[in-house]
């Protein structure tokens, strides 16, 4: 059986899954929506996210750390529960596909125009399924190692602070923005993935006040985003940032370390770890949803279904704009579900027996995803462990 997830590992997991693909174009999005000095708005988003996390924490405590899937399954009649679980689960797999697809497109942009987006997406999704199949505990541990592999890159960016032109930080805040509802949601998309806490809660250490770690993680990610946004707005004119496609990647190219200029795209490749983790956590959340509805362990079948759906999506010939639209639509629906789930935490009363069965559910999943001891060859003959040397 896997042990519960520790607070620090949970914080790192959140950091890694939230820091996703949108990060590369975040300064452009924020500047477009909010205009000058808009980096400051990222802290507003962070505050909103932390506030929402707190609501989830309170709701989760009310239901004794039960997963939102279990709460839905406990309180609603089966047909309604099935709809409320299956549709978001499918949505999560679409989001996983979106992440893989978006990464493949960025890879094509950075590495080679001849990169086959479909093949790359399928390869990423296979890795995602492989990771998700191992369960949340392994995903979390993997995230810590990925974090150690990739976090050091941020320190290269610190060197650029002396190159920024303070003239570009006008005394005006939030001027020349073109605020749109979709734009606001797109920026929120950069912070999404934290909502999977709603499914992770049963796997966390029981006595850990996980909101502290979650808030800390959100604060770090907010600062991280703000730093890149601040740098971009200091290094490039506001009008120009809006038109640069992946402005964060260009920041690496502008670094003062000569050797780093050559490996800009290589540094980008390390961000695949985040893409894989985000997609894995979404895929795993979907699998957890289906598991709640099933009485028997159908882990492999569920995995196969998820795989078929995600890979089938790879064969739909989306162009760049259609992909963006799908990303945007699925994000909007996701936000809707997040709001509904958060409300359900508080609307639905606590039911004791189902919540405790959730804990058992957690254990059985851990068993399933943990490495069970391989029984040695079975025979009934002659082992007698008796002689003491």
């Amino acid at each position, binding site marked *: 059986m896997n042990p519960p997830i520790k607070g620090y590992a949970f914080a790192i997991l959140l950091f890694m899954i939230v820091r996703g693909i949108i990060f590369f174009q975040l300064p452009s999005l924020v500047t477009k929506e909010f205009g000058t000095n808009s980096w400051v708005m990222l802290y507003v988003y962070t505050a909103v996210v932390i506030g929402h996390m707190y609501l989830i924490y309170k709701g989760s405590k009310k239901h004794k750390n039960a997963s939102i899937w279990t709460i839905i399954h406990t309180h609603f009649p089966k047909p309604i529960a099935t709809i409320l679980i299956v549709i978001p689960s499918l949505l999560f797999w679409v989001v996983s596909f979106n992440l893989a697809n978006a990464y493949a497109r960025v890879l094509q942009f950075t*590495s080679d125009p001849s990169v086959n987006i479909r093949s790359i997406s399928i390869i*990423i999704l296979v890795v995602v399924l492989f990771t998700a199949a*191992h369960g949340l505990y392994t995903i979390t541990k993997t995230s810590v190692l990925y974090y150690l592999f990739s976090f050091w890159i941020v320190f290269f960016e610190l060197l650029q602070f002396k190159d920024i032109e303070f003239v570009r930080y006008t005394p005006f805040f939030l001027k020349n923005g073109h605020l749109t509802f979709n734009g606001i949601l797109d920026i929120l998309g950069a912070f999404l993935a934290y909502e999977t806490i709603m499914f992770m809660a049963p796997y966390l250490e029981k006595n850990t006040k996980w909101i502290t770690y979650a808030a800390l993680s959100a604060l770090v990610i907010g600062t991280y985003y703000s730093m890149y946004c601040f740098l971009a707005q200091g290094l490039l004119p506001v009008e120009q940032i809006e038109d640069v496609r992946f402005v964060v990647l260009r920041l690496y190219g502008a670094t003062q370390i000569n050797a780093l200029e050559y490996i800009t795209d290589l540094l980008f490749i390390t961000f695949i770890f985040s893409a894989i983790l985000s997609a894995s956590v979404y895929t795993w959340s979907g699998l957890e949803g289906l598991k709640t509805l099933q009485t028997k362990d159908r882990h492999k079948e569920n995995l196969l279904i998820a795989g078929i759906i995600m890979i089938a999506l790879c064969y739909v010939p989306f162009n760049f704009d259609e992909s963006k639209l799908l990303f945007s639509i699925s994000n909007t629906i996701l936000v809707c579900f997040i709001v509904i789930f958060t409300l359900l935490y508080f609307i639905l009363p606590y039911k004791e027996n189902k919540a405790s069965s959730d804990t058992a559910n957690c254990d059985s999943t851990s068993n399933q*995803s*943990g490495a069970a001891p391989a029984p040695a060859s079975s025979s009934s003959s002659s*082992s007698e462990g008796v002689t003491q040397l």
Partner: protein
Amino acid sequence: MSVVQSDWVKLTRNEFVNVNDLTVEAILGGQMTIMYIHHLLNKNEYHQVITAFTQDSDSNIALNRLMSVWNPLQGHNEQDMLAKISEHIVNGDIVGVYNNQVGMINSGAASFRSIQSSAKENVITGPHDAFVESAEINASLIRRRIRTPKLKGIKYNIGKDFPFYAYLFYVEGVAEEDVISEACTRMQNLHMREVLDGNEVAKQMDDTPFAVFPQWIGTERPDSVTQYLLNGKVAIITDNSPTVVVAPVNFLDFFAVIGDNYERWHFSRFIRFLRLFAFTLTLMTSAFYVAVTTYHYQFIPPTLLETMITSRLRVPFEPMMEALLMEGVIEILREAGARLPTKIAQTIGIVGGLVIGQAIVQAGLTGNVLIVAVASSALASFIIPNYTLETSMRALRFINIVLAGLMGYFGIVIFISLIITRLCHLRSLNKEYIDLSYFADFFFWSKEKRPRSVVQKSYFRRGGRS
């Protein structure tokens, strides 16, 4: 026992039919019959237990003296008795039959290699003794280091058709109970048709048998095993094998050797870091070369790119094929060197390294830069202290090269992702293979604290604070 004396001898003869090295000898004027396998007999012991008692004295006195030191054998029935007689004979003991009574005396089995230093696990400072092919001697080497009855050693017959013996060792009060019970359960359920080495036992005891990475550490050094036992692990000594296997292990354990503890801490930690670096180098160097020369020219500074292009001008193969070819040659040379006598192996190394390497470049089959990459990678693999892990790395390197050849850096990153996920999922004796809390202990040394491995009950190195 109702059967007559001659029946035991006859029954034994029938059991050992076509075993021509069974000697049946009548001594003391035919009053007693002794049976033994002369190939297993230690001649000095034979003299001490038979000849010395029987020469220069009356046969009855000699018989009484003999019977006073022999151990009587008793069985529940004829079959049981015969099984015991056979077991003692094949173990190298002498079985004597006198007047319907059966006795045995240990005459020492066939000689073993003397205790020498380990050929594959050298240390500069520290003890130099190593295990030999006898479980008893190996156990004594451990017992000499941990002189306490809390060092437990449980004997198991893990043979399915024939007896093969293995001993499970652990230190009571140090190893965790769940680790001990898991190891005991697995040993009890282990029935193998052939057990020729400890590594075979380890493979059967693995949590994930088909994983690329070893889940038990095999070592020939008694001081290593002692340290592992004192850090809460369990050890399995297999008879007739100089390899003792230890679990549960952490992935980083494969990069630490006992010699590190004998060096000054800063140097030993530096070397550990170097080993991890070498591990990365072994897996990545050739693959990086392939990825860069196939897809990512833009990653290379112009001067270096020029050198690489010049070195590859005459090469007819794609970088992936070129790398696979060179890695293949290196593996062949390494395998040839390992199987040949030392002096010839040295020659093969020189011929392979210098002559073939130079000739391949001159023939235009590969570039100079690749030779440097492959050689660095091969050299780095030798720094990995555990041979089993090293062989795993060598196999994985080929997969990485193919992925790099097909997908460039993306392939390498995918390879890293799969490996990391798998490593994070692996267990050794139900304990985690990658334990994040162990990282700090691996790199830093504490005067007071022992490594906080997952199985560590007593955290403090010094007394009184546990």
